[in-house]
């Protein structure tokens, strides 16, 4: 009797938990499905090969697309990674491996502050640091703003990825007469590499979706730059910011392109997470 009731309770709890999971997943699927349904019509060859141009192009059925936005996103995001990864991993190593260093309380405070700072303020910071002195909006300024978004995430995940490596591995290295930095570089970091990669991907996914810091740094651009240096030194289009401006425009065709931009952005983030997950599980299997 009692046993029967326990079984029944077990089933009930499982049912409740499954329902809760579904409740969380349903909105996610609705969002994805809605974005795809609304935007799929605008995804054609031109979308990936032509620049946007003036609204008239879309209205008159001329060729228009977001190739400059997709490329711009890649340039800005990759440059941001290039800036944030070495600094973030460095800060994470510092926090985890040299916990007694005099500068660490300050570093931790800065990192926590940066982590809690609204993204739009990071854009403002990059505006003051880069756009003002340069006198122009630029892809580089956008990358700096996004690097501010990535930096604290990478530093934190690096710190926790290194902290879970057993202390005994460090001692084993030191006992061989290796200097501390060598132990970190050649034994701790390789062991924690999966955690580091995951952190970088999470930071990338977070930053890739940010529009606010880009509004007054990379600014946006309806055209491909005329010279390659324009990707870095001139205003550059990026997906989240383009999505925003397409969405608030008064043109029906642009609205549809905005949804399509959403599909691309979503796929970029999903792909990043899938790669992250694969790296994670791959690392776990390899350990056995």
């Amino acid at each position, binding site marked *: 009797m009692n046993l029967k009731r326990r079984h029944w309770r077990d089933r009930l709890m499982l049912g409740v938990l499954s329902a809760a999971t579904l409740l969380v997943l349903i909105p996610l699927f609705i969002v994805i499905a809605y974005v795809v349904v609304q935007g799929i019509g605008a995804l054609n060859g031109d979308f990936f090969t032509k620049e946007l141009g003036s609204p008239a192009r879309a209205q008159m059925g001329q060729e228009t697309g977001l190739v400059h936005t997709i490329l711009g996103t890649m340039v800005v995001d990759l440059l941001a990674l290039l800036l944030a990864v070495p600094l973030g991993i460095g800060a994470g190593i510092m926090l985890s491996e040299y916990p007694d260093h005099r500068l660490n309380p300050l570093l931790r405070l800065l990192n926590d502050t940066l982590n809690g700072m609204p993204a739009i303020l990071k854009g403002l910071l990059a505006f003051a640091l880069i756009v003002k002195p340069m006198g122009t909006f630029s892809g580089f300024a956008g990358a700096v703003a996004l690097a501010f978004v990535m930096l604290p995430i990478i530093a934190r995940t690096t710190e926790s990825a290194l902290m879970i490596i057993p202390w*005994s591995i460090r001692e084993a290295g*030191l*006992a*061989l*007469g290796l*200097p501390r930095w060598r132990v970190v570089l050649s*034994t701790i970091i390789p*062991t924690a590499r999966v955690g580091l990669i995951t952190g970088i991907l999470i930071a990338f996914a977070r930053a890739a979706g940010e529009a606010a810091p880009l509004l007054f740094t990379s600014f946006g651009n309806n055209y491909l730059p005329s010279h390659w240096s324009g990707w870095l030194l001139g205003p550059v289009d990026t997906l989240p910011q383009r999505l925003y401006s397409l969405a608030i425009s008064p043109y029906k065709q642009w609205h549809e392109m905005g949804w399509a931009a959403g599909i691309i952005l979503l796929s970029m983030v999903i792909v990043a997470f899938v790669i992250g997950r694969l790296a994670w599980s791959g690392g776990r299997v390899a*350990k056995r």
Partner: protein
Amino acid sequence: MEQAEARKTLVTRAPYGRRPEGQTAELREMGKVRMQARSLSVHYGTAVGVRDVTLPIYNQQITALIGPSGCGKTTFLRALNRMHDQTRGARVTGQALLDGEDIYAPKIDPVIIRRRVGMVFQKPTPFPTMSIYDNVVAGLKLVGIRNTALLDEVVERALHQAALWDEVKDRLRNPGGSLSGGQQQRLSIARALAVEPEVLLMDEPTSSLDPQSTMRIEELMAELKTQVTIVIVTHNMQQASRISDHTAFFYVGDLVEFNPTRKMFTNPDEDRTEDYITGRFG
């Protein structure tokens, strides 16, 4: 010829210098004092781990440190190659001499001390991302020794010394973590031996091993002592009596007694030692 040359570079690279030849030779004679703790204390914050220990470590002999859990034997062992430098809040006072030179003197680099005084830990600690081969030569490769012929030779020698060669010679490129616990511990020993330490500190090296692996490691220590000076912490008193030449008995942070092992286990000076050895407490 080239290998002999390389070996020479390895040795000259190692920080053996600065001591006059004659003195070195004399010091390295068997049975001379190789290391010496003088009024050595280790403090953790306000607590005391080891109190005022004075103890000689004889060259090419095995010194066993015994005592109940928490008596400070591991703490003392770690003080002998400056492992406490890495422990937050730990402070060492007094002296630990290696060939007459205080390893805690201000100008001494702990990295160099740890090259001369190696350590094997209680739990096997192969580097998880490295192959068996790379684990063994980690201490050489990571300081920039790239000569493959030399490294090959070192791997074979160290694995032979650690009685692991026959079991792994066909799979040197497999990850170190793929070995069994006992093999991993012997791999850790091989790795420690590869850098040719003068003194080897072993912290309960067999406590997580089965009797067979324990036996192999004990045999190994008996062979090794012709080349290195060994200090071993052990909970197992039979082990201490089987393998060691001298035994030190620690109790709550104090060195109670230090004597030749035979005397220690047959006719100890202190009642507390006898009580512990005969199993009356601890």
